């Protein structure tokens, strides 16, 4: 985790996943006190939501681009075939 925490919204996907895994490993190692468990979980939930949004957006865009590329290729092949 970076020493200087960014606001959650500023985090990149990779950083967010890293923070998530940091929280998880602390929870797994029982380094988190019951008192802080809920707070940590909230942070984790926020990070999860952030990442989910990022993936959704990326998926839409990537799917579009990949589709466009495939169409262009198919077109080119058709031209060739004609």
């Amino acid at each position, binding site marked *: 985790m970076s020493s200087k925490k960014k606001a959650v919204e500023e985090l990149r*996907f990779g950083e967010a*996943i890293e923070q998530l895994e940091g929280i998880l490993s602390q929870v797994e190692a*029982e380094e988190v006190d019951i008192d802080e468990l809920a707070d940590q979980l909230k942070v984790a*939930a926020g990070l*999860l939501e952030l990442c989910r949004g990022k*993936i959704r957006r990326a998926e839409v865009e990537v799917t579009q681009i990949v589709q466009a*590329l495939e169409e262009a290729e198919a077109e080119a092949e058709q031209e*060739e075939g004609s």
Partner: protein
Amino acid sequence: MVGEVNRVRVSQRGHLYFELIEKGDDDQIEGKLEAVAWRTDHPRIRQQLATAGLEIGEGQTIRCRAAVDFYPPFGRLQLVVRAVDPVFTAGLLAKRRQEVLESLVARGLLELNRQKTLSELSLRVALITSDGSAAYHDFLSSLEESGFGFQVYFIHASVQGKEAEKEVTSALGMLSSLPVDCAVLIRGGGSRADLAVFDSQGICEAVAQAPVPVLTGLGHEIDQAIADLAAHTAFKTPTKVAEFLVERVASEERRLVELRAALARHSVGLLRQGRESLGRAQRGLGLVRHRIATAAGRLGQLSEIVARVGQWSAEGQGRKLQDLLRRLVDAGPRNLAAAHHESDLVAERIAAQAAAIVREKTAVVDGWERLCRQLAPERTLERGFSVTRDSKGELLRHPRQVVPGERITSHLAGGDLVSQVEET
């Protein structure tokens, strides 16, 4: 006769006419003689040369057997060639070829063109060949079939005959001004003798020094011309050159397809991985519930321990107290009994001893009394002894104490007895 063949032509009747010339150092013709091979000799000569892969061509030096004939209608002298020595020409050609090759190697020209990089996408091509030839058509149609966007800069050049060397060299010289990726030098095929042009110093040097890679397709199956050796890559036919170029582009196109597919695949993979990470994280967060359940369980245990331990501790202390009480209850009276016993014992012993002392002293006194009684004089008298006293009452111990006639009194147990002394 030995000379260089020049101005070859075949008449309609099948006679082969040419000039046999001799050149000076600066390529100037110094001697010239008209020559003819009659129709009757021409096919045989041709065949003889063909066996060595040769033909009578311009610039070719030959050795021939000939008769000098004078032709009166024109008033000129002409050689009638009966036979040509193919070995002489072949050797000559080979020698020349060798000289050119060595010169190229010596100047480092042979590798020069090969060192040029052939662009991955060689779409702009300079084509050097004879306009309208089979080679020209084959090459262009091969490119066209591919459907790729080739751009061909065509430069006409004769690839056989006496102008060939000059034209090809000149065409190669034009490359520097053209925006091309490579040059293609092709020929549709033909005699082996024609190929000799491509061994010429001029063409070979031009190929070597061309500003772009030169690809050759000179249409022969067996031999390689020196131009082939100096070129970037040599192919056997023009079609092969075209196929090569098309294949290069096609491979680039395939590479593009692969790149696209790989990009798509890995992008999707990255996304899937991201999703998996998230899924893992989410499942991991389920652990939190487990943590809480564990903590709650531990708390329950502690609570039970608190309950048990409190009561148990109080009970334990109570038992300890009970124990102490029992010991106290036992020990108090035991102390009293001991005191009792002790005092009783002392009392008994003192009483007993006192009685014993009384008894003992009584016995002592009794003894003494008995002794006194035994010692009393009466006891002696009773046994028959007697005590005798004189008249004065003195105890008699000796007869001289008395005189005869004296009255003495004997004390006996039974009483006194008075007697008179008769003699002493």
